[in-house]
């Protein structure tokens, strides 16, 4: 049974879709419960997968492989077939991200209690989105990865465009087109690699590209080709991450999309960019990646500072958080650019950590918006009075975001910078400015809402018991990783070691 475990995991949300199809669309309550139960199923499966997963095991686990698509090509050198397989599997990195996905999905489903209309189609799309996200991290070849990658786009387009706020359609289009650009570049790069090497499997590709140049010449793979491919991949994932100046779509999405979807989006979808950079960028083209490390680091620092500076004077708390995401993704780049164990681990930690933190913060903002019908900082003040738990959690989330020790954000920032300081101390020192700015904008926003003279809110209720579940679980996870990072780093180490081995230590 274990052999199909991953496929079951990936497609388990389909059960929810199926059940929903036969649920009357006006039955709000059962739909919402099905929505939550439907996301619990993948979570359960993910936990089973985790138990089947050997922590210290190297390489791919629980792999599945089936012939899928086959093009037969008749070329002068003889019959060459270009088979495409359905290949899934997990290593430490993808296991972590799959877990993150399934957890955040459940919490977002709970947060979806605030959705006001069309619950049925909302949850169907939600489930499809989850399939895409799980699949992206489990896919072991480019084709499958791309398919799941695109699968996430379409439900997102709908979810933003139908359930978002005022300028939702514009945001949905922004999302679609920017990500379309990313995936377009991705597709060209993938197909080119496929046609050059005849395989789409990650490991085989990595092996092929690591062959000595004399053998690569027979495949017509030059150094420049590799560099070109890497740059294409970097650009493609830079859109997703996003890297300034390709970030404006993300800000729009964060402002306009419904809160549970933003939880998912900033919690997981942005992480696909980071995942791609690690697996494809560093994993396939280590030498070229190393030679571009400075540029990546530079962009990381730019991202960090740019996002932070822009967050400082935003008036809308959603925009603050959006730019904060830009800024925090800079830390991922910083970690990657350092090309050492510390940096890489830091980057992955940042992926997970930001996933949890931003999910938490956007959840809270959603609550706030539901209460007040606004997310403008001016409309708030002294919320701590009427909503002390809310204020406490929000403050905790903010502190986690600014990298307070004991919370996950610290570990990731620490390790990413630790990594970069080894390789590019000056750049890293400039980057640390971002740590100060982060404190400035996070406190400004959080304190503007929770502290100060109380302003009347139309509907100031503290977190209800359903709302507390996601808030507390996320907070607990943030603390857990912050206090006991070894759990995560041990899981990641074998995978990162392989990548680092390619990078030459």
């Amino acid at each position, binding site marked *: 049974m274990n052999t199909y475990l991953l496929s079951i995991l990936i497609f388990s949300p389909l059960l929810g879709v199926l059940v929903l199809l036969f649920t009357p669309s006006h039955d709000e309550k059962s739909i919402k419960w099905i929505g939550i139960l439907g996301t619990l199923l993948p979570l359960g499966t993910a936990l089973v997968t985790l138990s089947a997963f050997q922590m210290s095991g190297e390489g791919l686990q629980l792999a599945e492989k089936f012939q899928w698509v086959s093009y037969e090509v008749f070329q002068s050198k003889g019959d060459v077939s270009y088979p495409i397989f359905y290949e899934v599997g997990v290593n430490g990195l993808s296991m972590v991200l799959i877990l993150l996905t399934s957890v955040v999905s459940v919490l977002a489903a709970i947060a979806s209690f605030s959705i006001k209309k069309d619950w049925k189609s909302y949850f169907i799309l939600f489930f499809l989105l989850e399939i895409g996200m799980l699949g992206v991290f489990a896919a072991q070849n480019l084709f499958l990865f791309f398919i799941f990658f695109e699968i996430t786009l379409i439900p997102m387009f709908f979810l933003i465009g139908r359930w978002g706020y005022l300028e939702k359609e514009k945001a949905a289009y922004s999302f679609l087109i920017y990500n379309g650009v990313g995936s377009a570049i991705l597709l060209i790069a993938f197909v080119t690699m496929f046609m050059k090497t005849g395989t789409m499997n990650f490991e085989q590709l990595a092996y092929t590209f690591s062959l000595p140049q004399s053998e690569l010449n027979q495949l017509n793979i030059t150094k420049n080709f590799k560099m070109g491919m890497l740059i294409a991949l970097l650009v493609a994932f830079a859109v997703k991450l996003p890297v*300034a*100046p390709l*970030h*404006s779509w993300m800000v729009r999405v964060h402002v306009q999309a419904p809160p549970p979807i933003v939880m998912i989006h900033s919690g997981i979808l942005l992480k696909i960019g980071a995942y791609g950079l690690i697996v494809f960028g560093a994993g396939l083209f280590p030498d070229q990646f190393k030679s571009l490390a400075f540029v990546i680091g530079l962009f990381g620092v730019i991202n960090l500072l*740019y996002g932070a*500076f*822009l*967050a*400082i*004077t*935003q008036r809308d708390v959603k925009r603050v958080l959006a730019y904060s995401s830009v800024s925090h993704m800079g830390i991922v780049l910083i970690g990657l650019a350092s090309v*050492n*164990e*510390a940096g890489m*681990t830091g980057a992955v930690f940042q992926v997970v950590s930001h996933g949890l933190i931003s999910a938490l913060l956007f959840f809270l903002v959603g609550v706030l918006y539901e209460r007040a019908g606004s997310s403008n900082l001016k409309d708030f003040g*002294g919320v*701590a*009075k009427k909503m*002390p738990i809310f204020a406490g959690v929000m403050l905790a989330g903010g*502190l986690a975001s600014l990298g*307070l*020790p*004991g919370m996950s954000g*610290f570990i990731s920032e*620490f*390790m990413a*910078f*630790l990594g970069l*300081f*080894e390789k590019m*101390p000056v750049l*890293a*020192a400039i980057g*640390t*400015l971002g*740590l*100060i*700015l982060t*404190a*400035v904008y996070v*406190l*400004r926003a959080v*304190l503007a809402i*929770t*502290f*100060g*003279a*109380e302003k009347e809110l139309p509907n100031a209720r503290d977190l209800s018991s359903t709302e507390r579940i996601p808030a507390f679980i996320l907070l607990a996870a943030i603390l857990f990783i912050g206090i*006991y*990072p*070894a759990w995560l*780093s*041990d899981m990641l*180490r074998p995978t990162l*070691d392989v990548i*680092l081995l390619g990078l030459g230590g």
Partner: protein
Amino acid sequence: MLQSSWLIPLFPLLSFILLLILRKSKSESTAWIGVLLTGISLVLSVGVWLAVWQGDFIKVEGTWFQIGERAITMGYEVNPLNALMLVIVSLVSFLVHLYSKGYMHGDERFPVFFAYLGLFSFAMLGLVLSPNLLQLYMFWELVGLGSFLLIGFYYFKPEAKAAAKKAFVMTRIGDVGLFIGMVLLFWQVGSFEYDEIFASVKNGDISSGMLTLTALCIFVGAIGKSGQLPLHTWLPDAMEGPTPVSALIHAATMVAAGVYLVAAMYPLFQASETALTVVAVVGGVTAIFAASIGLMQKDIKRVLAYSTVSQLGYMMLALGASGYVAGIFHLTTHAFFKALLFLAAGSVIHAVHTQNIEEMGGLWKKLRVTGPLFLIGALAISGVPLLSGFFSKDEILASTYADGKYGLFWLAVVAAFMTAFYMFRLFFLVFTGKPRGDQSGVHESPGVMTLPMIVLGVLAVVAGYLNTTWFGTFLSDYLARGPVELPHAEHHGPGWIPIVATAASLLGIALAYLIYRRGALSRDWMTRSLPGLSDVIYNKWYVDEGYDATFVKGTKGLSKLGILFDKYVVDGLVAAVVSGVQGLSKIGSRLQNGQVQSYGTFAIFGIVILLLIVALTGGYFS
């Protein structure tokens, strides 16, 4: 005993958790949870200290997580320096807990306050117990969190909110320095462990430039935490917090963490002459600078706050001038008398419900306990002989002189004079003369508040005898057992130094007496004679305004600029592409004009152009 020292911080943490759960409780007996648990910590600390006194040290570590082959460790360490700190911290914390039981009476978030106190105590004790820089850094930040929460305890007050934010951000600037220094050291040494760092320093594995750089970076951290110039502005503002908090955090413990940091990393500093000089200069300048501001403040707590900054400057000066023991000695005595002063000030505020000294006066008779205790504190800090401050300050002056830093020496003497002056200005204005405000309901504070003050008062008197040339240098002998190699021969400067110091402080007291008690000199005597200077001093040298005009405005400006950039350049480029496509679309649909004949014409044109291209580029006619 030592094996259980790791429990010391955990009791306050337990207190934090318990009280957070009980946060809605209206009962004020919840305070006893905090008092009791910190009391246990105190007992343990004293036990540990005694063990260390007998020469037992301990260091326990375990792997926290691994980065590649390198293990990042966590654990605890007890050595003379931090055992002393443990006692100071847990003692003051315990006393402040007790005091707050009375001071916070009636506050609707009573348990929360004690919870925060617990969190802070946990962090501070954890900081002290840390065996490596990383762990120290983590607690360092948590201490900042505790401070932040307590400054902002009255969250509904805009000033408190601003002060909390300012405290956090300003100290974070320093923290980043510490962070950089720590990480740089890591890549030099391969570890965050103090031992290994010191070993590398000793072996000369680190280039001298890097040594200076890392030492300075770490010192930046100390500057931020200890409110040294130029990052001092948050500390006076932090007085927005409840007064016990000021006593605990912003006088005795957290702000001393900077000094502790420099002391804990002393071998690193010793290895770099430049770093030591910088420490000394920053300390000396801060001492006199803050003292000068203290001269003219009207808020009782702010005067004390500037006094704290100034005294911390003294400690830095001592450390910078190779007066390791002197620095720590002053840290110890200062913790007691400054906590005493703050608690006494709190008692005063508790009585008169104002912090403005202009509205006080003549309280001596009404506050029969607080008054004398305040006087003890004032005498101690002013360096009046036989009280604790006298000995420690004397030692600092002596080491500075012996280290050859004569300029700083005289600076410190002047600062001592100023200290005496503003402290007694405060004392005379508050306790003597006629009441200048409504003092109808004024009465002495309850026992839970006076008791801690009395304890501190006793300590403020006797703590000085820890290390004297007359009775014995217990402290320096004790510290000498630690990992730090003390600078050879603690300086015993020329015999005239105590006389000069005493003279300076007595002169200050006398001047204050003349102006504020006797009225022999007009109060605005200085204002009139040096209007420009007094204006500058009164406005705290315009540092806040300067920062506001440069860094704050600059950052905001940059941010606004960034927003414009985002809007017009980043989005503008996209808009340009979009309108380009739309333009093409427009052309495309214009061409589609409904005339079938023009369609044909376009087609023919297309074919002809294609043929032309073929003819020109195909090479058929060459």
